[in-house]
């Protein structure tokens, strides 16, 4: 495998700029912004409702959120009563809802779940279209296959990161201006953290798309296969779990089983999940590259 850093940089930068012109980036940009802002809007309404109805107990609302998040994060709910008799909240939800801006935490959790479903729209046509049209042959006169494959992956990842940065910045800024219940520093730090974890999470799913795109000769087939794998794994795990508990482990075929730990208060858990995501990325990228290297283009 010969990788030239200059070629890699050139191809990735071109691919980032080309993403919108090519159409895939434009659709991803629109869907990501729409999805992110709609999610934020739903939680905005919830917050407004709480503020407008003074008769509602705010702590009760936090406890409802806590129960939902415990269910989402699969946290055991054996909350031991403390000396005061009030159950102690578990450390994970306490970190997300009490120590950090809760509104942003809830939005990030939904984005962590939903954004992987959108990424295939951006990544499905990294090489499939050019393989189908045989256009890659002209490019291969000037550079190695590895530079094209990894350069386009990096370009797509950069584009996705820019979109996520814009989305998270908009949401954090809006939440700060509208509610004024969190300090600017807390919002900025937590916003940066959320941006970081969502960006890291996109990489393995984008790598799945790279592998699919390199393996089939039709962009449509690549999109369908990427979507089917990314959506199919959690559905298969959820259905399988009801029939036979060990089938729940299907979710570890993709980062679905570890991705929530990116929001964990313990650094060891966070680092483990981040390393896991990067490991999945390397694995899927290499599988795709092996296929791309060997196939007739």
């Amino acid at each position, binding site marked *: 495998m010969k990788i030239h850093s200059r070629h890699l940089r050139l191809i990735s930068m*071109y691919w980032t700029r*080309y993403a*919108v*012109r*090519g*159409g*895939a*980036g*434009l*659709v991803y*940009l*629109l869907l990501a*912004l*729409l999805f992110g*802002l*709609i999610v*934020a*809007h739903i939680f*905005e309404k919830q917050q407004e409702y709480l503020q407008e109805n003074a008769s509602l107990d705010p702590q009760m609302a936090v406890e409802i959120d806590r129960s939902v998040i415990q269910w989402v994060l699969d946290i055991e709910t054996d909350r031991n009563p403390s000396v005061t008799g009030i159950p102690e909240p578990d450390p994970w939800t306490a970190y997300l809802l009490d120590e950090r801006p809760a509104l942003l935490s809830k939005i990030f959790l939904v984005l962590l779940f939903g954004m992987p479903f959108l990424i295939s729209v951006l990544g499905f046509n990294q090489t499939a279209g050019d393989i189908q049209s045989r256009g890659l042959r002209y*490019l291969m006169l000037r550079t190695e296959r590895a530079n094209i494959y990894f350069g386009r992956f990096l370009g797509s990842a950069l584009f996705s990161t820019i979109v996520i940065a814009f989305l998270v910045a*908009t949401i954090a800024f*809006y939440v700060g201006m*509208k509610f004024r219940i969190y300090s600017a520093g807390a919002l900025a730090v937590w916003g940066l953290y959320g941006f970081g974890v969502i960006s890291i999470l996109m990489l393995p799913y984008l790598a799945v798309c790279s592998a699919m795109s390199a393996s089939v000769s039709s962009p449509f087939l690549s999109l369908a296969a990427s979507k089917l794998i990314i959506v199919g794994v959690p559905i298969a795990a959820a259905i399988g779990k009801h029939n036979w508990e060990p089938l729940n482990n299907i979710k570890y075929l993709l980062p679905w089983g570890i991705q929530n730990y990116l929001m964990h208060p313990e650094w060891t858990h966070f680092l483990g999940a981040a390393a896991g995501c990067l490991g999945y990325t390397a694995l899927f990228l290499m599988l795709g590259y092996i296929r791309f290297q060997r196939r007739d283009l």
Partner: protein
Amino acid sequence: MEDTGKRPGGLTALAVINFILGGILLLGALGTILGKYGIEMSEKAIDERIRNDPNLVEREPQVAQQKEDLEMAKKILSDPTVRTLNLLGLIPTGLLIVSGVGYLKQKKMLGRTMGNLYAVITIVLGIAEIVLIDKEYTEGFGLASLIGFIYPVLTLFLLNVTFKDDLVE
């Protein structure tokens, strides 16, 4: 790697999005027209139920709430500002579809000019909606209105930067 004569995939995607959005907005306009009759019919039905059973409101308080909601919807739809803005909203809907055709044919007038016109009118109408409509009827500026500005702002950027040299015929 770029061919200026060939239509870029992004422009095709933009045209398809225009058609989809245009269709949705047309259905919305149709819904507003039909909604008016729907409200009147529902109101008549509730009034008749109350006439037949005078204790209905006491027994089922949600009926009174339904009646109140219908009256509010009727009030909103008969507000002159709302009606004017609804009517003006048909202009960008038409422009969306016309400019979509222009994008596909890569026309300067039909594509770029109409597309820009759609974006500017939508932004102006969006601001007018926030400023002019009674606060009793709307939430004012919020994330919902921000969502409404995404596509026109993006259209302005794409037509005048990304696809500037593709809409020249």
